[in-house]
């Protein structure tokens, strides 16, 4: 076996190498290094794919069996909603009118409730770097970051960040790299959520909280502690 054949085999199924591939790896330091790198990536990949499973899923399946196995239209309705949300939502975001920036940010938060119950990329330095790359220089910490995720938006990807302020308020910050807002700010209230969008960095940002009082405090915090370039 030569190096090329070994690498093909390793990439196709890293955990199951043939005796020939194992023998080659024993003799070739470069391929041992390659295998170590692939193994490292594979561990990262396995951790990434291992998404949390909803609690009680198996018991709900068993309960449904006990209750009778009628076919539910829920799935079709849900799939249609998801398709429509993506299609309509993306179009809306693209052709956004002056009132929609804040509302769309709320809708995004409502579609990802796990952002409040999951700890993800809770790294203050990464948060600072993300803000810097988006065009915001943090003069001081906004609080304790709990969740960060890149989300698809029409013109690329935007950041969805949840953080807890020093006062214990929970807030979401959405960074959208798109054309700049014309208005200085836009506010919306939908389904118990309230949001304020402002131009900043590579596009605009929106702060979303569960009460207008908290929104005011967090908006003030962001304005005091983040200096936007451009």
């Amino acid at each position, binding site marked *: 076996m030569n190096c090329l054949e070994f690498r093909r085999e390793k990439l*196709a199924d890293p955990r199951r190498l043939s005796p020939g591939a194992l023998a080659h790896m024993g003799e070739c330091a470069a391929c041992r290094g390659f295998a170590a790198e692939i193994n490292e*990536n594979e561990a990262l990949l396995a951790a990434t*794919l*291992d998404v949390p499973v909803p609690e009680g899923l198996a018991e709900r399946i068993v309960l449904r*069996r006990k209750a009778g196995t009628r076919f539910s239209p829920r799935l079709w309705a849900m799939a249609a909603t998801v398709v429509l949300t993506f299609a309509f939502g993306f179009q809306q975001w693209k052709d956004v009118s002056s009132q929609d920036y804040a509302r769309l940010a709320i809708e995004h938060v409502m579609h990802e409730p796990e952002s409040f119950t999951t700890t993800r990329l809770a790294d203050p330095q990464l948060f600072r770097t993300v803000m810097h790359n988006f065009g915001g220089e943090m003069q001081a910490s906004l609080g304790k970051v709990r969740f960060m995720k*890149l989300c698809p938006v029409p013109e690329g*990807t935007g950041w969805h960040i949840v953080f807890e302020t020093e006062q214990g308020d929970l807030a979401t910050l959405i960074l959208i790299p798109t054309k700049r807002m014309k208005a200085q700010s836009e506010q919306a209230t939908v389904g118990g959520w309230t949001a304020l969008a402002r131009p900043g960095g590579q596009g605009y940002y929106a702060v979303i909280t569960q009460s207008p009082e908290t929104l005011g405090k967090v908006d003030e915090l962001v304005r005091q502690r983040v200096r936007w370039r451009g």
Partner: protein
Amino acid sequence: MSVFRQRQFDQAARAYSADLYRYAYWLARDRFVAEELVQETFARAWKNWDSLEDLAAVKPWLIAILRNEHARLYERKHLDYTDDDPQDLDLPSATQAGAHLELEQLVEALPETYREPLVLQVLGGYECREIAGMLGTTEGAVMTRLTRARQALRAHLSDPAKARVAK
């Protein structure tokens, strides 16, 4: 249905629902749809439980049902197979949103024909031959897709700035 069969089904639900959920999540990329897909998969499986002859083959059977449900859901009987060169895959670039790339986004951005065998192998531990059987394709095609998926991820993980992003 006998109590024995009911127990078999309940054991299968407890043993495999988590793996099926993860597989469904990476197919649908939506947690609510993923759970419903799993529920529907088991509902259909229960309806046909008597036709299951080999209990050892229950997991691949459930995966096949889930896959069919997903395809029916989006009225896509056939996947749009792609054998693009990994450099031509439209993965998110490091410059988009000035962001640090995350592996999750890279996996999500993989074409379904690359992502699906990758999920089956990494999460399910299946061999290329078994995946080929589930996806109704050849072992060689699965090996090619897995190789290209990993090459694409590797290129971004090792040096995202140099990874080419083609539109």
